[in-house]
């Protein structure tokens, strides 16, 4: 049996929206019998009940089970999605996050009722700070983008307290889209830095920006390894330059999976960074969240961290409010359930296990690169860490086949495509991050699929214009969706 193509046919069941299963008067879930007299509001009562579906338990179960069967997921196969770290999500973590002792705690119970939750936050913040070699950490931000905003707002508060507001944040052009968007939210203007073909920042590039913008620069925001999977080897000198003018080095920690135990941002001169627990620490992506975007920083930024802070005094966990805090970036303490999973993951691996996570992630990415580079051009020749980037330039030049067709063709081989057209600095980029949880056998099968596609293009056997064809639905008309938006069932005209 050929293993490079995993896509087989089987029975997948069609299903309308749940509303179309409805029958008037049918009751789904039963609440307990009311133990007090029934009352209804006399003023402001809702005149017309919300039209929710009226379905049975089995109908609900079938509906969502059928829907689930139309998704691709890590549990089904390899997910080489660059910059997203789609690694396996250990199931013990789900069990632990569902413990009643964690689930049934309201965030405003008196402190003596929630010592377990407070201790967990305290331990996780401490572990996250030591992994990156920084002094303090907050786990409050709900996702990476909020973490970026939090980090930048800490910098803003610091500058406002010491010498006044600064205007600009320097961002390499290979950065995630959230970086410039977070800058705007934090009140900064984003200045893009044009990175050369080696794929990393040179000292001259930063010097040039400093001579132009000087002390109006609040910070430089970089991902390291960057979005090309390349280590910013001049990072320490760049940090020195920035610190020389009182600016800060802010790191997007989206790619921490490459450097656990291999390099500490604190040793590179980073002042503040955010993590993505749903990437590096294996909390599930869940079809787009929930995430958690902790922020770690040096002591000079710590007085501005979001409130409340969890502290320990003689074995008792308490909360404190910092007078200079930037405020709050999320309700309560943050996405606590995500924190449980992340701490479990960290404790399951230990410090040497976490280093092993990164070494294996780097080996896997380089192995794939080695297997693919004969048939695909690389985005850069600089050594890659946990992800590698290919370009479609060879396929376009020789046969006019683009990245989007290669991506859709991969679906017909049973894979999720890599991240495509990102980073923007590589034409027709395919950013591949296999992660450490894939075995070599799986990587070989994925590589075979990539190579089969490349060969079919080379021999002009296929152009993959029609791909995907094996998927549950055919090629989706995304242009039509935007032209005539149908965004709820009530927008339907047919």
């Amino acid at each position: 049996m050929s293993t490079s193509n995993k896509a087989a046919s089987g029975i997948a069941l069609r299903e309308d929206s749940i509303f179309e299963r409805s029958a008037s008067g049918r009751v789904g879930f039963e609440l307990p019998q009311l133990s007090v007299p029934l009352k209804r509001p006399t003023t402001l009562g809702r005149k017309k009940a919300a039209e929710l579906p009226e379905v049975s338990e089995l109908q609900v179960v079938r509906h969502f089970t059928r829907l689930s069967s139309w998704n691709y997921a890590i549990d089904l196969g390899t997910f080489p999605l660059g910059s997203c770290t789609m690694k396996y999500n250990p199931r013990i973590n789900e069990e632990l996050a569902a413990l009643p002792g964690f689930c049934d705690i309201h965030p405003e119970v008196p402190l003596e009722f929630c010592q377990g939750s407070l201790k967990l936050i305290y331990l996780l913040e401490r572990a996250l700070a030591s992994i990156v070699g920084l002094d303090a950490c907050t786990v409050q931000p709900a996702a990476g983008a909020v973490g970026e905003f939090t980090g930048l707002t800490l910098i803003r508060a610091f500058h406002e307290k010491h010498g006044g507001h600064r205007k600009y944040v320097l961002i390499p052009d290979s950065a995630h889209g959230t970086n410039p968007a977070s800058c705007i939210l934090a009140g900064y203007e984003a200045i893009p830095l044009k990175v050369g073909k080696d794929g990393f920042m040179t000292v001259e590039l930063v010097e040039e920006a400093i001579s132009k913008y000087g002390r109006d620069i609040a910070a430089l925001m970089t991902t390291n390894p960057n979005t090309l999977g390349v280590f910013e080897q001049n990072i320490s000198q760049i940090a020195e330059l920035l610190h020389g003018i009182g600016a800060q080095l802010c790191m997007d920690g989206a790619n921490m999976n490459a450097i656990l135990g291999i390099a500490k941002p604190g040793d590179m001169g980073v002042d503040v960074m955010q993590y993505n627990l749903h990437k590096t620490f294996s909390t599930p992506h869940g079809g787009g969240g929930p995430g958690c975007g902790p922020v770690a920083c040096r002591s000079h930024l710590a007085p501005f961290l979001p409130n409340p802070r969890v502290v320990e005094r003689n074995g008792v966990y308490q909360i404190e409010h910092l007078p200079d805090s930037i405020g709050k970036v999320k309700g309560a303490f943050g996405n606590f359930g995500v924190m449980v999973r992340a701490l479990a993951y960290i404790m399951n691996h230990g410090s040497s296990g976490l280093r092993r996570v990164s070494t294996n992630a780097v080996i896997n990415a380089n192995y794939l690169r080695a297997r693919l580079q004969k048939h695909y051009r690389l985005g850069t020749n600089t050594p890659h860490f946990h992800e590698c980037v290919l370009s479609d330039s060879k396929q376009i030049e020789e046969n006019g086949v683009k990245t989007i067709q290669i991506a859709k063709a991969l679906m017909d081989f049973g894979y999720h495509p890599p991240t495509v057209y990102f980073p923007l600095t590589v034409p027709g980029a395919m950013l591949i991050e296999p992660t450490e949880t894939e075995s070599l056998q799986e990587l070989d099968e994925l590589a075979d699929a990539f190579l089969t596609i490349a060969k079919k293009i080379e021999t002009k056997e296929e152009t993959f214009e029609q791909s995907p064809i094996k998927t549950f639905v055919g090629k989706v008309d995304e242009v039509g969706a935007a032209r005539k938006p149908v965004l709820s069932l009530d927008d339907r005209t047919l």
Partner: protein
Amino acid sequence: MPSLPLTPEEEKKAFQTIGVQSFDDLIATIPPKIRESARFQLDFGNEYNNLTSGLSEHELRDYFLKLSALNKTNPETLHFLGGGVYDNIIPAIVNQLALRGEFLTCYTPYQPEISQGTLQAIFEFQTLMCRITQMPLSNASMYDGPTSTAEAVLMAQRLSKSSNSVLLATNLSPEYRTVIRTFLSGHETQIGEVLFNSDGLIDLDHLSKLTQSLEPCALVVSYPNYFGSFEDLATIKKLLPSNCLLIVAVPDLSALSLFEPPGSFGADIVAGEAQQLGTPMLFGGPHVGFFTTKKEYLRQLPGRIVGETLDSRGDRCYTLTLSTREQHIRRDKATSNICTNQGLIALRTTIYLSFLGKLGFQKLGETNYSLFEYLKEQLSIRGISLKYNQASYYREGVFEVPHLEKRFQKCLSQNIVPGIPLRDKFGPAFENSLLVTVNPKHNRQQLDLLCEVLGS
């Protein structure tokens, strides 16, 4: 390590294929000084003060069971807490279905051909949010109520050509107000605080004065407000100049099962929290924010949206759409920096609301309403009355409890948390004020117990 499959043999094979001798060759671009100091220590206190090799699954379970046991929860304790986070009865199928690997371990549905399950579920979520709030347009979810409301303010600022000042009702949850202020801290924004009157409701005279002096682009009002009662949205809407958007924060979406939705009063944006519909309290998260608005504001909507379309075979299908608003396309010109949202929790909400259904949703509202009515009556018999008597309530309210501090401690000693004391949040006028909340898990016996302990 079960999650790390690479064997030493395979590692050797990998190095050969790559063309390196050892791992160090792969990371040679890291300056040696940084490489040499990269090790870290994991200190988890007495139990594991230098955890190097990691815990087995059994040890892990044991550790976390003990950790969770440091929390005091049901059934030994009884609480009457709300204020934005609510205990609720979660049907078994919600957990079971949301834990399916195809939902749990899938990615943001950027590739529609292999993400139809998630996409259709989000489309149904959007439909549910529109119908419950009576607004025509919903996005795919936000982090939570406070951040969703903050995004609503940012959207109003983008929509306004002339003003970026905003008004916040002071009877909006203190947490919502703090989060909004933090999200606005990057830009110069004049924030006016609208006071509440002796009924705990927005002071309409003060509102009129502030709309004249500040010419705000939006007013944020809470429905129900933090004190548990409902504002007269129709009158408020009439008072607002046409260029001032009415943002209604709904910290408890279940209230709209029973009360007239903000859409029927002309709200421009309805933002809030849907945690109480099928998601555990979990010490405050992950929960799920929703965001609904008018169609004319579509291009300024933050976050992801799913739309219906056709595939190449002519069949109905779904896709993320109108992404040119978003950060991955527009970068610094995006409507928000939000990327990851609360996908899985939005799915939970969709499953829960589908199962509860039209009648179940109404019954949920009636249960909360009736339990609170009973509690109100019983507490008043014991001399504990509502601080604001005129208003209409759903399931929580502020009570004036004589000798609150003493009685609160007495309740705690019997493992009852009677509510949230408001002194620290609203100042000395709230010395004896307690926000008491019911939820569908409560029964008459438990309410009687609260009355007995708090009332004597």
